[in-house]
């Protein structure tokens, strides 16, 4: 491992021309939403700063974040792993294994104390001291606490690390919690999504490397550059939404015409992500572009907000699945029945007292 190399050194050693290097810097600035005047800062950071060491831990997850990450097209996975970040520890991508790899993690933690980025994929099982997620001979709960202690900042990759995802959906058998429930004293940037968009992932890393700080975050701790607007706001089918032209069945003519998927349960209007902007797999498409409603995978607890194909979430109510409208109609009916019953009693009492009065008279 060659430490203290700058990005520019690595590019040069790899035979990348100065022109291509500057192209890369410009592209990265664009993805970060920076103004053109900031390109020199990106170039300077790439030339002067040593590569940022990254420790990438895996907890309870499906590795879809890594799968997304290795499909990044700007820059490509080869650039990232060999040239951009110094990915010192990653139990999925590392060549080493076992004790050898765990030693690397401890060495990095010691050598770059307070300087490395801790990237976490997956969430933490805290039930029964975390025995439901054992990695490298220890519970993931302990490993995470130990590694987070000396990190400069923490990146929560994906819906799991950010909000919990499917593991902490009801009934959450392993007591899974997002990493922000375990790490309280470090700045955490949440990059939710199942998985997050690869360019968003590399953009966050580059931002930290360039400025030495975390990107500006929203109320949920997500970088505003990528999670400031809803899918709906940038959706190319928005015109059909406003016009009231909706797909009503997956095999109707409207589907072929590519109308709005709102009535098919699309969660685009309530989902903050860049899918309709950056898209996936190098800008090939995104779910709505392929005719499927957004399932809101970057929103907190999206598994419990189902079903995916209807607008109103089901509410467990007295043991039965219902929705807001059903509950509302039942409550209104109950109020009307109550009023009618009350009126009947009033009438009976009035009639009674009236007849008594008449008797007296």
């Amino acid at each position, binding site marked *: 491992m060659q430490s203290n190399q700058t990005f520019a050194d690595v590019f040069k050693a790899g035979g990348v021309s100065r022109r291509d290097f500057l192209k890369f810097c410009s592209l990265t600035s664009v993805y970060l939403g920076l103004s053109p005047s900031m390109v020199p800062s990106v170039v300077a950071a790439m030339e002067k700063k040593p590569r940022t060491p990254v420790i990438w831990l895996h907890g309870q997850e499906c590795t879809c974040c890594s799968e997304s990450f290795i499909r990044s097209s700007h820059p490509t996975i080869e650039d990232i792993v060999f040239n951009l970040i110094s990915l010192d520890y990653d139990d999925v991508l590392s060549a080493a294994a076992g004790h050898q790899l765990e030693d690397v993690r401890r060495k990095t933690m010691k050598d770059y104390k307070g300087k490395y980025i801790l990237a976490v994929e997956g969430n933490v099982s805290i039930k029964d001291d975390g025995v439901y997620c054992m990695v490298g001979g220890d519970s993931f709960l302990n490993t995470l606490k130990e590694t987070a202690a000396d990190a400069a900042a923490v990146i929560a990759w994906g819906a799991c690390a950010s909000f919990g995802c499917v593991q902490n959906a009801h009934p959450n058998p392993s007591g899974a919690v997002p990493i922000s429930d375990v790490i309280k004293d470090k700045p955490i940037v949440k990059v939710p999504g199942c998985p997050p968009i690869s360019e968003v992932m590399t953009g966050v890393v580059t931002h930290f490397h360039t400025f030495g700080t975390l990107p500006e975050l929203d109320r*949920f701790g997500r970088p505003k550059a990528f999670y400031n607007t809803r899918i709906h706001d940038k959706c190319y089918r928005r*015109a059909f939404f406003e016009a*009231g032209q909706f797909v009503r069945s997956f095999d109707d003519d409207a589907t072929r015409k590519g109308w709005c998927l709102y009535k098919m349960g699309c969660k685009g209007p309530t989902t903050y992500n860049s899918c309709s902007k950056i898209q996936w797999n190098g800008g090939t498409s995104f779910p709505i572009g392929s005719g499927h409603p957004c399932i809101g995978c970057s929103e907190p607890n999206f598994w419990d*907000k189902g079903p995916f194909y209807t607008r109103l*979430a089901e509410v467990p109510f007295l043991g039965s699945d219902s929705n807001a*409208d059903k*509950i509302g109609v039942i409550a209104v009916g109950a109020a009307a029945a109550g009023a009618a019953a*009350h009126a009947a009693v009033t009438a009976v*009492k009035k009639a009674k007292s009236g007849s008594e009065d008449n008797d007296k008279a």
Partner: protein
Amino acid sequence: MGRIIEEIYVWRLPVRLYHWINALCTVALFITGLYIAFPLFNPPLGEAVFFRGMSWWRFIHFAFAFIFIANFLFRMYWALFGGDKYARFGGFRPWSPSWWGKPFLEQVKSYLFLRSDEPNYVGHNPVAALAHFLFIFCGSSFMIFSGLAMYGENNPGGFNSVWFGWMIPLMGGSYTLHWAHHLMAWIFPIYLIMHLYAVFRHDVVDRTSVTSSIVTGYKHKVEEEPA
């Protein structure tokens, strides 16, 4: 029926105007809100640019929402600074145990047929005051705050998103906020039924002309019929 022995001016013009604007807005908001959640009509055929199938309903909903908010704020002003004996918060003190005491219990008992006579109030009785506080004050406040938070989602960093956007993480996300706004909307038809029933019933039982009082402003005391 007995002779009218007293005419009392209870609901002043601002209160009556508030009432009817509020009633109109609530009905319009409920109907347009349901439509937005479930756009019922058949989609128009042709180029999207010529149609307002959804944006029109949304526009009506937002327009009535802002009238509703302005009306609500006016009513708050009137309650606090209007100096109106029958339209202020004055006697409403649910935090104090004494408020839940005799007058409240008497009214509850009367509604539950545990008392034969009806306590008589010129303004709101304690049970009505509590219902208005829960349904109209708390309910409207929630609908206004959650509504403005959702409205602010259109323009991140704008006024509504800065001042009301905290509702989104509070409710656990934008979707849950929409859902809560939708569920809470149903308290208004429930309230409407109870409100209309209570008014009609009081009119029949007490004969204080409470129903017409919200148009004319006057309630009446009538002479007891000779036994």
